[in-house]
């Protein structure tokens, strides 16, 4: 029997766990990479630098519908239709959206079939375990892969590649840093933690090593903007641990010299200043490319019959 699809009538966002990158708590930190712990303190702001070519990479996702799949076997499986897109903004004098890839995928346990709608075809992606969490993390992973795909196509001749979110699984890309805006967990304690609190705009912390399920170098940077609390405007940068120390420090300095210029202002972006202008612009463009949600929903329901 062919695959039958019933679209869940609830809003797809309902009851879906937030799929923001959840930060791991089991961490091991070495703060003595750049300077010993007792010499931690803000590293002065750099004069502004403008690399010849700068890239920002981001991705967006949207669950178009939750669905129930029935191919005659028991049990009926929960599936998820999602659209996601990744793209790049290249800054060479002017900023332009350089490349956008859009995917529509049906996530479901087992071997789902492609699903054709008038809004496009959802390619199948089988997940190993049933349940909403598995679908959701599969989507997250596929999006991550797409970002890597986009980044590796465009990153070649950029002086610096800024990937929105942790560097996880993208560490192999050249001259690439992960850009983390939110900090649910404070990893540093003592003098290093105090250093973050006293950073002035444009200043960064020394580089430290940071290990969870994988290892990278990281540093904090404070962006310009109103300082409402100790962590206002603080972002964390991640770079591959495979680089030599001097190269890592050069990267850290480069980010401090480059990124403050792109910090957004609160009257234009509620996530200011961390949500950098190029990334905010890219995100809007990517959402636009996902297509109109109402239209896509209608197309899905029409195809499900």
């Amino acid at each position, binding site marked *: 029997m062919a695959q039958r699809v019933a679209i869940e009538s609830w809003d797809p966002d309902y009851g879906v766990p937030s799929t923001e990158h959840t930060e791991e708590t089991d961490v091991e930190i070495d703060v003595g990479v750049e300077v010993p712990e007792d010499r931690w303190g803000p590293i002065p702001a750099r004069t502004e630098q403008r690399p010849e070519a700068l890239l920002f990479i981001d991705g967006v996702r949207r669950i178009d519908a939750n669905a129930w799949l029935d191919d005659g076997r028991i049990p009926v499986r929960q599936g998820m239709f999602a659209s996601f897109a990744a793209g790049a903004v290249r800054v060479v004098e002017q900023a332009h*959206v350089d490349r956008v890839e859009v995917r529509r995928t049906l996530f479901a346990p087992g071997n789902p079939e492609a699903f054709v709608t008038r809004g496009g075809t959802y390619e199948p992606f089988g997940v190993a375990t049933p349940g909403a969490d598995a679908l959701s993390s599969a989507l997250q992973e596929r999006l991550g892969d797409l970002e890597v795909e986009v980044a590796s196509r465009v990153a070649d001749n950029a002086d610096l590649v800024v990937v929105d979110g942790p560097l996880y699984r993208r560490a192999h890309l050249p001259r690439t840093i992960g850009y983390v805006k939110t900090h649910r967990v404070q990893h540093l304690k003592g003098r290093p933690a105090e250093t973050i609190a006293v950073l002035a705009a444009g200043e960064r912390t020394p580089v430290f090593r940071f290990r969870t399920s994988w290892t990278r170098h990281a540093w904090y940077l404070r962006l310009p903007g109103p300082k409402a609390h100790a962590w206002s405007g603080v972002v964390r940068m991640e770079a591959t641990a495979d680089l030599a120390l001097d190269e890592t420090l050069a990267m850290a300095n480069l980010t401090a010299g480059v990124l403050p210029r792109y910090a957004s202002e609160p009257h234009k972006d509620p996530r200011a200043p961390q949500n950098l202008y190029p990334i905010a612009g890219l995100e809007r463009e990517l959402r636009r490319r996902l297509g109109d949600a109402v239209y896509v929903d209608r197309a899905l329901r029409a195809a499900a019959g």
Partner: protein
Amino acid sequence: MPEALDTLGVGRVLGTDDATPLSFWVALGPDQYLQLDDVVALERLLPDGDTVRIYGLVTEVRARHEGARFDSDVFLIEDGILPAEVSQAAQILATRFEPEVFVPPLPGQPVYKAEGDERDMALYFDGMEKRLPAGLTRDDEPLYANLEFLDGSRGAHVNISGISGVATKTTYATFLLYSLFRSGVLGGEAINTKALIYNVKGEDLLFLDRDNRELEDEDRDRYQRLGLPPGAFDSVDFYASPRRDDPIAAPDVSTRQKGVTSYFWTLSEFCAEGLLPFVFADAEDDRQQYTIIIHNVVAKLRDAAEGLPDGGIAIDGETITDFESLARMIADRLQDDLTSADWAGRAIGQGTVNAFVRRLFGAVPHLKHLIRGNVPNPDRHRIQRQAQVTVVDTHNLNDRAKRFVVGVTLRRAFDEKERAGQQRPLLFVVLDELNKYAPREGSSPIKEILVDMSERGRSLGIILIGAQQTASEVERRIVANSSLRVVGRLDAAEAGRDEYGFLPAVHRQRSTILKPGTMILSQPELPIPLVTQFPFPAWATRASEAAPAKGNDDGDDPFRGLS
């Protein structure tokens, strides 16, 4: 990036604004542009397999940042901080559907610039059997008006509005005449077709018969593109009012010495043809009680005045040789108890008579050189319409005298046409400052002639090319009866008035920034007016431009007729 457009395509119909059969927007492809007044075409396939071709004109072009949300984003974008693209779009107002299936174009359909035959289709030039070159587009493509809407076949008359000095109303009216006579559109009739032009301001029109030697090659080319030989009018007679207090009645012009004849009316014509009402043609004469006296006096003069060979008259044995004496004689008759009832009419109060007399004497200083006796060879000074173009210069006359001249000459032209009883050959009358002769309010003998002309001229073969600064001050019927409406630069307040309802909003806006030599032309067949430019006059408009006269100068003796 949009997919490559097929060859010649400039963009696609966009879907973020409504596309309607009458108006739609086109997103322009990369490296493509459309400018105002460009002509475009596109094709729409109907479900039954038929195709409709839709033609239109670009009436608005816009550029904007896509990706920007705040005005100040432009700074971020220029600084390379925020990603954005510039998008350009053009608004099209549809002119034609072929066949007439009024469907909107669909978003995504490619749009082409219409050229050659397609452009002619879009602008209905293909269906114009007789097309009158009416100007050029900005890229020097010719634009036409359909002669059938000018020559009386399906319509007649031109009305031109625009502010003084920059609207080039007079020049455009003259250009249209030139085009009529020289484009060949009138065919064999051109030879007999005549024009009567009043020169009301300056002496610009006194050199119509001379090539403009300052005409640039560029403008020469533009005439060629219009199918017009650049040059002067072929056959022109010039008449000017005589100098005041000049016994030999030399023409009152300063820039042209030769080839101008002075005009005036003899007392004998004045009486025989009943020209007195045109002495009372001002707004203030309207609604006056003395109109009845005018009619009586006209009748009396016609009966009692006996014409003399020198143009004077004899009344009751008394010889009168100048207008002032005539006025005095009329006053005497009106105020003398013995003759008053006979001349003024019965039961006319003394006050009314006095008002009439005051008004009559008020006219004397302005008209006495135009109405005279005691002239040898008076026929010489009669305005004949022998040449193809007759210029009647009134620029040295005051308003009252201008009205007299215009009124009398129009009356005569109208009567002659009416008597001839034939529509052809046509007579074109170019009259500036229509608001003076046919103001919206009130009535006067001239206004009646003009309204009559605008209503019956089409069948009589008299075509009025009228101009005024503001159409809102001119009698509605005259404007309404004009098939071709033209505006040059308009004042913003004026452009908003109902009189310009034939202009779409964008054209109204544009009319306020038109440069000299650019006009907006509306004609019945085209739903949208055309913005057109016309070349600089190929005939001289002042002495310094005038190339030497060709041929013999035998009409150029100002003293001719005085021997």
